[in-house]
């Protein structure tokens, strides 16, 4: 299953995703999707280095479903992290796009 890396940004704690250029971005659609296990390990490695540079906290891989442009995490928890609270759709990423 395709995967992305999620983490919390150090300075503001916002949930962020690793993109193709090794930067941390706010929208999961912009994240780098690993299509294989070795590629997943590769992007995790890059995330860990970023953690050592004290840019982010607690990176981990999440399973995602890719549907054209849309990227959606599999687990409820990660769906909520990516979008925002389900009971306040005026807040979080969901409010911005």
């Amino acid at each position, binding site marked *: 299953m395709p995967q992305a890396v999620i983490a*919390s940004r*150090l*300075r*503001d*704690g*916002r*949930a962020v995703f690793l993109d193709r250029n090794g930067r941390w971005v706010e929208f999961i659609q912009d994240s780098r999707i690993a299509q294989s296990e070795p590629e997943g390990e590769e992007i995790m490695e890059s995330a860990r280095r970023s*953690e050592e*540079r*004290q840019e982010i*906290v*607690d990176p981990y891989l999440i399973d995602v479903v890719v549907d054209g442009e849309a990227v959606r995490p*599999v*687990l*409820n*928890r990660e769906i*909520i*992290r990516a979008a*925002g*609270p*389900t*009971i*306040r759709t005026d*807040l*979080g990423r969901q409010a911005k796009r």
Partner: protein
Amino acid sequence: MYRYDEFDRRLVDERVEQFRRQVKRRLDGELSEDQFKPLRLLNGLYLQLHAYMLRIAIPYGCLSAIQLRKLAHIGRRYDKGYGHFTTRQNLQFHWIKLEETPDILAELAEVEMHGIQTSGNSFRNTTTDQYAGAAADELEDPRSYCEIIRQWSTLHPEFSFLPRKFKIAVTTTPHDRAAVKVHDIGLRMLRNEAGENGFEVMVGGGLGRTPFVGKVIRDFLPKQHLLSYLEAILRVYNQLGRRDNLFKARIKILVQQTGTEKFAKLVEEEWEQIKDGALQLPREEIERIASYFAPPSYEELDAQVPEFEAKIAENPDFQTWVKTNVFPHKQPGYAIANLSLKPVGGTPGDMSSEQMDAVADLADLYSFGEIRVSHRQNLVLPYVKRADLYSLWEQLSPLGLATPNIGLTSDIICCPGLDYCGLATARSIPIAEEISERFDDLDRLHEIGEVEIKISGCINACGHHHVGHIGILGLDKAGEEFYQLTLGGAADEDASLGKVVGPGFSGDEIVDAVETVLDTYVSIRDEGERFIETFRRVGMAPFKEGLYPK
């Protein structure tokens, strides 16, 4: 209310500067997350699903209008315009930035507030009756003792790394509104035969994955020994509490594994050694603290207030609100007004900055500038003239704070759940919202009467589901949210733990299940019988039959 003197203020100010340096070292990369985490936790800063979360202590639920305005400001300036009142009478902001936290804490310190020990394995906020100082049935104002405990338990050098967190609750009324039996230590004031007030001491209550009702280890503790006795309990716990397993580290497990009698004996032995030492509370010190909680300057009023009675007679909506949300006061002509933070379809305990500002103004107008937070996640104006109740109600209504549901089905205790919390296994707020929508008909709500629904989004039980008359626990089953239903819990003087009724329900089914339980109750109750009384009389069977028809 208690006011800081120069010593209290210095401590909090120094703490803010200390944390400012720590945050700088973290942002500069000098501290790793492993090193920083215990430091931020000791200041109430968590890292949650969407952002940092800052939990602010509201000592024993007492807030001034000035403090509430500051919270409104912080919500607006540093968060997303709202805050969440918790079951521990605290307030948390869910969208905090680490880099702004020192400034927030400095702003809080200006109004004598902080986040010290709202997390971490030490003493948490000591909680009490939200009607303290106003309730007609209290033996003494519990806030003096809470404040004495607050000072003793703040940055205690010996007990800052206990096996696990530690919560103390105090009640001084026969009817316990502070849930003292489900705290690590519960203190219940009573009067002995000589006419002196002292405390019955309970230990080892608590919720979480292994819930217990607290056990009495001392029937009567004279007041001057309050702190030495607490120190003795904590010293025993600090040395003997389990540290090998996070889930067995609370004092309740120690009490259970040691046996109540033996545990009591260990405490008494330790106490014998220290009871006459430096922790003894001189009467003058108790009186000095109590003077901060002297009654406000009440007017001499008649108990009968004709204009109030007239308004009740002419306005049925007001009458309904008075019936559920107004509580008798010790002072003639005054009342305690409850402000519901449980609007239909809303998040229990959430309050916008605009609402906070408005309530602060109303508190200044009608309640000597004081507000209380209840563990049931509502607010209280403790000193309202009965003659002012109508104007107060009129102003609360457009603010969405006059829902007449205190103690009723939609007055739900609810943790933030998976919408915010990193530990949660399922969402809890949407369930609370849906229940309140299902039961939005006031006649039906009042027909059902007093019932406590409590919802937790995981086994840690922040939503107190074990002690809900109806408890709901959200779990994860193969990636789907599902909900376990418990019945028969109570958190008051007759505390009991609810029992799981049967197989759990999906998110789509759980609200129907709650409705079935309430319909069953209504159909079998005796005249005037509350839900919990019916449950205790008939047991689980009729509810089971309703929920799982063969």
